[in-house]
């Protein structure tokens, strides 16, 4: 290659750098919204964000968030540099608390959120001073999932995981996102209270260690398990109720079952990093999302459970049953993972996945 051509190549690449990186900055009012990637984000992109743009004229650029805590670590690191990878993010409850402790979240202005009254009280996240820092967006269940080709009969209880299913299970790999300790405590002991005493915790760990031989895949990333579940390679495990429903609707031989002990209920709240500049748009978005009619739309199209009180919704009994369940759910023991997280996750690696 001649030197001149080389310089030309370099110049073109440079231009591409500028344009390629600048393509993201739109001229009109816009908002970057972080939601979990995959099926979840796809259905938000297809059904929810276009409606918001239609209603308000604000364009949405969706950002694929990783599940687990990686996202708030990024938000926090970016906020230290005055950057915000997304203006509004969907944040799970455990991460809401961690972000609150480090002062990551911007306080929201309740006067700009007229629809806040519809949102269930416990999903209006408040910081220590009582300021609003998050508003419930969606709730989701982790349930018992199975491949319908391999298991014609749906399992009915979490204790199925302990039965004779050698190398057939796919379970979430981290203590802080699988909530298997809580599941074990609810299925075989007295529930989360058991996890508060040392003997209880030891007993739960010992019981959970019994499933080890049944597990074929401890998955970190959903795609890994979903692929294997759909193909029947790993025919049973724990997974998200909503995504499984979407996959089943796509024609895959999978089903999600609420065990009799209940599914694990977690929720995502909309939260705004302190580095975010587009506060007006962010409030407008959160307020728009809290309308009962939008919550109906989300439940119908994304398959998650609404965060608005039931009486405001127009969902039929069947529609509500499809995204939720009357069985009392298992609630993650957030305080345990937050305050003793290092110790729990190390024990977890040693005794459960190791």
């Amino acid at each position, binding site marked *: 290659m001649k030197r001149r051509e080389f310089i030309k190549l370099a110049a073109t690449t440079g231009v591409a750098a500028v344009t390629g990186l600048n393509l993201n900055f739109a001229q009109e009012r816009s908002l970057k919204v972080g939601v979990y990637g995959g099926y979840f984000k796809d259905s938000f992109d297809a059904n929810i964000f276009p409606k918001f743009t239609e209603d308000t004229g604000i364009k949405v650029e969706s950002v694929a968030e990783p599940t*687990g*805590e*990686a996202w*708030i*670590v*990024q938000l*926090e690191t970016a906020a230290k540099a005055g950057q915000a990878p997304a203006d509004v993010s969907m944040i799970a409850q455990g991460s809401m*608390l*961690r972000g609150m*402790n*480090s002062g990551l979240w911007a306080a929201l202005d309740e006067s700009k959120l007229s629809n806040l009254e519809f949102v269930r009280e416990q999903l209006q996240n408040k910081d220590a001073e009582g300021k609003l820092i998050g508003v419930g967006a969606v709730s989701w269940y982790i349930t018992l999932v199975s491949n319908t080709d391999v298991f014609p009969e749906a399992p009915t209880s979490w204790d199925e995981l302990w039965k004779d299913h050698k190398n057939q299970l796919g379970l979430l*790999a*981290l203590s802080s996102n699988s909530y298997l300790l809580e599941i074990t405590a609810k299925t075989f002991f007295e529930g989360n209270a058991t996890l508060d005493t040392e003997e209880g915790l030891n007993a739960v760990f010992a019981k959970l260690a019994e499933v080890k031989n049944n597990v*074929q*895949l*401890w998955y*970190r990333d959903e795609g*890994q398990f979903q*692929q*294997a579940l759909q*193909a*029947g*390679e*790993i025919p049973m495990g724990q997974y998200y109720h909503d995504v499984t429903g979407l996959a089943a609707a796509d024609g895959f031989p999978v089903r999600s079952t609420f065990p009799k002990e209940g599914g694990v209920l977690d929720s995502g709240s909309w939260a705004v990093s302190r580095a975010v500049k587009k506060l007006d748009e962010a409030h407008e978005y959160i307020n728009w999302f809290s309308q009962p009619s939008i919550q109906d739309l989300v439940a119908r199209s994304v398959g998650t459970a609404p965060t608005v009180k039931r009486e405001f919704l127009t969902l039929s009994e069947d529609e509500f049953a499809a995204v939720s369940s009357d069985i009392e759910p298992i609630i993650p023991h957030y305080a345990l993972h*937050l*305050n*003793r*997280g*290092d110790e729990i*996750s*190390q024990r977890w*690696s*040693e005794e459960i*996945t*190791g």
Partner: protein
Amino acid sequence: MNHPSYGKPKNRWPYFLLTYPAIMILLLFFVPLCIMFALSFFKRIQSAFFEPAFVFENYVRAFSTFFLQRIGVSLWVAAVAAFICLLIAFPFTFFLSRLRRSRQVPYLVLLISILSLSEVIIAFSWSLLLSKTSGISNLLVALKLLDAPVSWAPGFVAMLSALVYISLPLAIIVLYPSLSRLDVSLTEAATTLGASPIVSFFNVVLPNVRQALLTTFILVFIFVLGSYLIPQVLGRPEHWTLPVHITDQALLKSNMPLAAALAMLLLIASAGLSLLTLRLGRSQL
């Protein structure tokens, strides 16, 4: 071979030339390592992030049985992979370097192209290769060697196959210069003098390439030691190497101080082993 008039500079011009590389390398490579070293003494706040301090608790945790075992696993996996890799790469490179130059080129292009492939892509293609739906077991079923397709991942063998795969091109490329410069007439002479090919290989070829083999082993060893995605996608949790845990601590658990302490251990382990092996190699020559 150095410049014919290699020597001490006569004016300041060379130092001026060095300013820019010095600034860039120090700022972008050396300073970060120093910051990381400092970070490894910071205090972790469990329910939030971390704050500046001078504490040893990160090293205490890094030296716990759990992480020492992880280091052990990482070193073991890297050693096994590097050994297998060399076992394949050495004869292969030898044969390759005996081909006509023009015939070597396509193989070299293939090797460098694979070498440059992202670990992401390789992990992905191996997870497909070993899966039930799209894996080679389907081929074996078609050839009637197997009754039904099976899944071979995740597992130790799956992980090892991909690790050897990703490091094989590196080993070949590193071995290539010394093997292609190796004078075959030596072996031929030995063989004509009545030595069997195997004897002449051990007596003539091996001593000439021992240093190259050692260097390659270390490079591959470190290369595998650094792999992050393959153990995570193709291995089971007990095979997750230290880089997986370092990244988890830094990005998932927001525990930068522990991640930094673990990275320092990895740094010492890999630097120490390289130096030790190099020294051993030299003393035997």
